[in-house]
């Protein structure tokens, strides 16, 4: 081993307090970035996950200008389902309704409640909204209704088996009503699903709205997450139905409005994390300056026995590299332990949506390398100061 590496390591090992302080500074900088990533990127990814699974799918088809697609959804869903990468495609129609509910003689009413019409068989394949039913079961018949938990509470405590009356205005302007039996209550973490809506069979909604065969959107789910494939399939679909004035968006596009704010927030939080890492570099500068000051005598002796300035520079830069390597290793290790914990426990905060935790290896490596180089950079000034010590001055302490 080169004597400078040996000397740098020994000097640090014999100044454990300084070593631990400097390593902690680097580790904490990395840990802050890991925690930020797990929490904020986790929330962002969780929102995308839930939006993909409940509202938009991997590809979301709607009309370019109109609120509804008049042509039968069967044409489009059949096209999608012929694509091997597509798991399922399902139509959705939405409207709003006033809801009346009588319970133990008490009359409850809610106005303008969003109503989502689904085709149960294909919806179960395409979306995961059916998994949010925490009581009862999903829509299975034309008179069954799933009530979002918030709506259920607002109506005074709707339970499975209760009877609700939906009142809507059809496209002809006439008021229509229909009774439904509650088959399920839907609840999602963080309210990312249809907690403030009700879900009924799409044919019932079409009938009430007098919009036979119409849908608002087609929800397309791929076999696995594959953004490139989604873009390709979208292009092919739009080319196949170029005259239908349809709009097909990937999840990133369809959820753009919601996600834009989050992205800025994540960028800001990451900036704070990197600022923290920068602050750790100042801590290293301070600690290394203390090390240099405490090693004046040794520097003088080394210079006297022939060490050149570059040798002294190398010893202290190597110390920065050792601090950086240990700090980056420890910070990454603790950060990964935290990430694994968050992933294995489906971490969530006070009932909000479970974080979508991923190991972003390029980012993990980038953070560790950045911390290492910062520690090395931080060592340059103290090392330079060490080289400026004239042997005769350093020897005065001898």
């Amino acid at each position, binding site marked *: 081993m080169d*004597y400078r590496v040996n000397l740098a390591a*020994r000097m640090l090992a014999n100044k454990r307090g300084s070593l631990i302080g400097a390593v902690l500074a680097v580790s904490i900088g990395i840990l802050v970035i890991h925690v930020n990533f797990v929490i904020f990127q986790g929330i962002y990814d969780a929102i995308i996950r839930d939006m993909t699974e409940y509202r938009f799918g991997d590809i979301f088809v709607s009309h370019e200008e109109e609120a509804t697609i008049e042509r039968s959804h069967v044409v489009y869903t059949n096209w999608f389902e012929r694509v091997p990468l597509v798991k399922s495609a399902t139509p959705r129609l939405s409207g709003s309704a006033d809801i009346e509910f009588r319970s133990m003689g008490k009359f409850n009413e809610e106005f303008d409640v969003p109503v989502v019409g689904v085709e149960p068989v294909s919806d179960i394949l395409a979306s995961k909204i059916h998994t949010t039913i925490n009581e009862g079961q999903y829509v299975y018949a034309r008179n069954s209704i799933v009530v979002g938990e918030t709506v259920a509470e607002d109506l005074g405590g709707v339970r499975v088996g209760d009877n609700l009356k939906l009142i809507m205005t059809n496209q002809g302007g006439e008021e229509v009503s229909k009774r439904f039996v509650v088959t399920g209550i839907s609840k999602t973490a963080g309210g990312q699903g249809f907690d403030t809506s009700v879900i009924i069979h799409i044919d019932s909604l079409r009938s009430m709205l007098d919009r036979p065969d119409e849908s608002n959107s087609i929800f397309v789910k791929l076999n696995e997450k594959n953004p490139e494939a989604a873009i390709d399939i979208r292009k092919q679909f739009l080319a196949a139905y170029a005259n239908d004035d349809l709009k097909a968006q990937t999840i990133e596009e369809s959820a753009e409005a919601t996600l834009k704010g989050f992205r800025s927030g994540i960028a800001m939080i990451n900036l704070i994390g990197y600022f923290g890492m920068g602050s750790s570099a100042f801590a290293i500068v301070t600690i290394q300056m203390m090390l240099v000051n405490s090693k004046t005598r040794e520097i003088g002796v080394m210079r006297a*026995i*022939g*060490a050149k300035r*570059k040798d002294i520079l190398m010893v202290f830069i190597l110390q920065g590299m050792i601090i950086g390597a240990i700090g980056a290793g420890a910070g990454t290790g603790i950060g990964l332990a935290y990430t694994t914990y968050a992933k294995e426990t489906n971490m969530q905060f006070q009932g909000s949506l479970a974080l979508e935790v991923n190991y972003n290896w390029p980012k993990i490596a980038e953070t560790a390398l950045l911390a290492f180089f910062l520690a090395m950079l931080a060592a340059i000034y103290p090392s330079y100061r060490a080289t400026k010590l004239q042997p005769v001055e350093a020897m005065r302490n*001898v």
Partner: protein
Amino acid sequence: MSDIVLELQNVSRIFGEGDAQVKALDDVSLSIRRGEFVLIVGSSGSGKSTLLNMIGLLDKPTSGKVILDGKETTTLNDGQVSQYRNEKLGFVFQFANLLPDLTVLENVMLPQQIQGSPEDIRQNAIDLLIKVGLEDQINKRSNKISGGQAQRAAIARGLVNRPTIVLADEPTGNLDSVTAGKIVKLAKTMAKELNQTFIIVTHDRHQFPDVDRVITIKDGKAFSGEETTMEITA
């Protein structure tokens, strides 16, 4: 090869400026021959440490020349001076000044490691440690051995590069009289065995009764001989 290994020609060293000027060395000229065991004596503040710094290339004279092993050193740059110190000089300090983070062996190996010597550095160092009687201490941390042992290790470190001159600054100043006597004896033995030039700076002439030559420093001037018999210019 010239027999003179060190020559100082009219070396002066002035510290400070204007009225605060202090002339630590005043027109000192001296020469040392290969294999000589030379004692530089003088009272505190006489300028002997400044002289040692000049000889050790740790400081540059205000005027005059320091010629080491035939080469004028005052014109060398910092890197060249470091290399010259490493190759031509061995240092033994008052407090040994081994690096406390290293073992005794690593301390002795250090000058050769700095030099990047192609020799078997480890074996050279071990051989020297055996010669100075520290074979059982080689793997101990240098701050875990006694003062006398540390000074022996320092002598081994000073000799490991086979320098032209070994400079010893008060090598016994921090030791009890028995240990000091052993160190003096060791230095003499090594000097004789290796035909090694030793320049020892001390304020205590009596620790070194048997030397080749004594140079006395007084008020920045160098005199040949002891204070009672000294002649100007050594």
